[in-house]
């Protein structure tokens, strides 16, 4: 028994040594020599590519690149926000020769993507979200995001006209700045219709937990919410549960109207095809890629689902007017006087944060009228 064990350990050591030698060899003679002619772009998703949500929006953007001359795409889905994503990035770089990688999920950034940035200084990494900071992080990293809070404001406008109970519901994953901005925007949009409206938020704690999302939706509707929206990776469960209970829905990430055609009001959708095309055009032209990319409705980064059949005339009018206002640029959702739901002042009289304001990307409060807590 012991002899057997020794042997297998020796075998193990041999294999490890061989592996290390191979690793050194590939570091000394990189396999990715012919990169200039055809560039490979890697996309990493945290869930399935066709989830009616976050990952589907990114995968549709990636799919739009497939016809582009000289570009090949590698994708991997269902990659957890753990050291697994580092392995995925390494294999995309070493085996597929990727020169640009989009790790699309929030938790991929720190420490996983940062570790890879240090290890592969020649490869460009662009992370979806607001985490990159030019004082703290390497220059072969960067971030891109859309001002989708504007879309949630428009959702709120329609919801504000549609609600009878004056209570809205929001199923949220985690209290990070982008989610908080969406919740606040949804409520403020509704309050632009009627300042008495409140919004109840339930955090599920995870980006994708089907049973908990269904429970959260039921709990919101039990408490009288009659328009529900969400910020989770796959809104399918929330949309179907809410529609089953007779509540109206505002969508998120992608167009979910086929799931509930009668109850779907409108939705805030990503348009990543536009963003990925911009990066790839720069890559082909040999130009340095931007480190900080942002855009909103006017830039085509974000779009709205077509208004559903349940949307009334007054709602339609205000929706169109607000959208036109936003398209002009300079629209601000967070403007004073405004307090958080804990009573602290977040914007003084006359103070306004336009969509591009960098302060919004470190939001840590819920505004007055939102029932919920960030911790």
């Amino acid at each position: 028994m012991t002899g057997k064990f020794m042997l297998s350990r020796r075998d193990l050591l041999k294999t490890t040594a061989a592996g290390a030698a191979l690793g050194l060899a590939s570091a000394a003679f990189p396999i990715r020599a012919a990169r200039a002619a055809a560039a490979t772009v890697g996309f990493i998703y945290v869930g399935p590519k066709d989830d009616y949500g976050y990952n589907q929006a990114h995968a549709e953007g990636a799919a739009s690149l497939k016809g582009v001359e000289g570009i090949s795409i590698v994708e991997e889905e269902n990659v957890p926000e753990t050291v697994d994503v580092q392995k995925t990035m390494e294999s995309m770089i070493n085996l597929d020769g990727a020169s640009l990688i989009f790790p699309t999920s929030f938790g991929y950034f720190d420490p996983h993507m940062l570790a890879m940035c240090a290890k592969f200084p020649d490869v460009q990494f662009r992370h979806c979200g607001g985490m990159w900071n030019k004082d703290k992080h390497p220059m072969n990293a960067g971030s891109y995001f859309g001002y989708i809070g504007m879309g949630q404001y428009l959702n709120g406008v329609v919801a504000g006209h549609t609600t009878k109970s004056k209570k809205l519901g929001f199923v949220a994953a985690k209290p990070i700045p982008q989610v908080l901005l969406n919740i606040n925007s949804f409520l403020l949009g509704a309050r632009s219709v009627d300042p008495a409206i409140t919004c109840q938020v339930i955090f599920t704690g995870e980006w994708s937990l089907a049973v908990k999302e269904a429970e959260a939706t039921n709990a919101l509707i039990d408490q009288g919410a009659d328009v529900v929206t969400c910020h989770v990776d796959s809104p399918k469960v929330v949309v179907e549960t809410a529609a089953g209970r007779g509540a109206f829905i505002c969508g998120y990430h992608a167009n979910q109207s086929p799931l509930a055609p009668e109850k779907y009001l409108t939705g805030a959708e990503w348009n990543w095809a536009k963003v990925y095309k911009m990066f790839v055009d720069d890559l082909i032209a040999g130009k340095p890629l931007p480190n900080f990319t942002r855009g909103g409705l006017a830039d085509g980064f974000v779009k709205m689902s077509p208004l559903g059949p349940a949307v009334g005339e007054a709602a339609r009018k205000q929706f169109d007017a607000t959208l036109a206002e936003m398209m002009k640029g300079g629209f601000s959702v967070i403007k004073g006087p405004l307090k958080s739901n804990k009573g602290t002042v977040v914007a003084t009289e006359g103070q306004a944060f336009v969509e591009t304001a960098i302060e919004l990307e470190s939001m840590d409060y819920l505004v007055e009228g939102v029932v919920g807590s960030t911790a």
Partner: protein
Amino acid sequence: METTDIGLWGVPLAMLGGAIRVSTPFIFVSLGEAITERSGRINLGLEGTLVFGAMSAYAVAVMTGSPWPGLLAAALAGLCFGLFHGWICKFPKVNDIAIGIALMLFGTGLAFFFGKPFIQPSAPDLPAIAFGAWSDIPQVQAALNVNVLFLIGAALAVFLWWAFRNTRIGLIVRVVGDSADAARAMGLNPNTVRLLATGVGGALAGIGGAYLSLYYPGSWTERISSGQGLMAVALVIFARWNPLGCFAAALLFGGAGALGPALQSVGVTQGYYLFYAAPYILTLIIMIATSSPSRTLAGAPGELSITK
């Protein structure tokens, strides 16, 4: 939509509704595992069976337009997984726990592979019976919308509890689980009994999966189970291999799981991560309270590889 303000009553109501809605997969998987473990084998692969059952039920329901063929497909798929486990484990020196883990990964992987084209389409749901029709409060009506599978699960728990004590088949399963030598002396073949017990256990787990994808939450995604199959296997030990205990433990788990969202919905918003841990904390407390240093687990089948 009519709404009534129910305020804090929402919490007990949500826990009741949650217990009914969330518990069904736990009930089926834990009853299936109870049968398997009573025969002296552990099948840890039921998580994989649950996920594969959810996928096959959804896929067949989408293709046929009716949930019932889907339910049947899930049960058959589960039966195949169970029989496969039972067949491999009959060979000498095969470890049933290791095979179970392998089958768990195999089942989930296979379900992801075949399930890809079914993430998007919508399947018809299994019907529910409106036990809340007497009430004019919509929240109560919603909470008491009880799916037929929950009722079948409850009846099955009582039946199994009775059958283990009072029927010949129940006795055979128990004797094989307690002492293979005694069973052989009686002229029984332990491997055949365990093969069938694992097969039935797998079929029940498949039905639990069908509930997930065809009723609540009612869609097929790759994260649909998030470990419920594994938890259900643990529930069997927690329930001391008693089918009625399995049913009660599943209800407890479902109700405690609904606590987190319900408390947030009435404005108790601080520390929700702690409330989400409620089912596990509760399990720990009960396990500690009912354990004893002076005796082994009451009701544990003697042939089980964890007690041998």
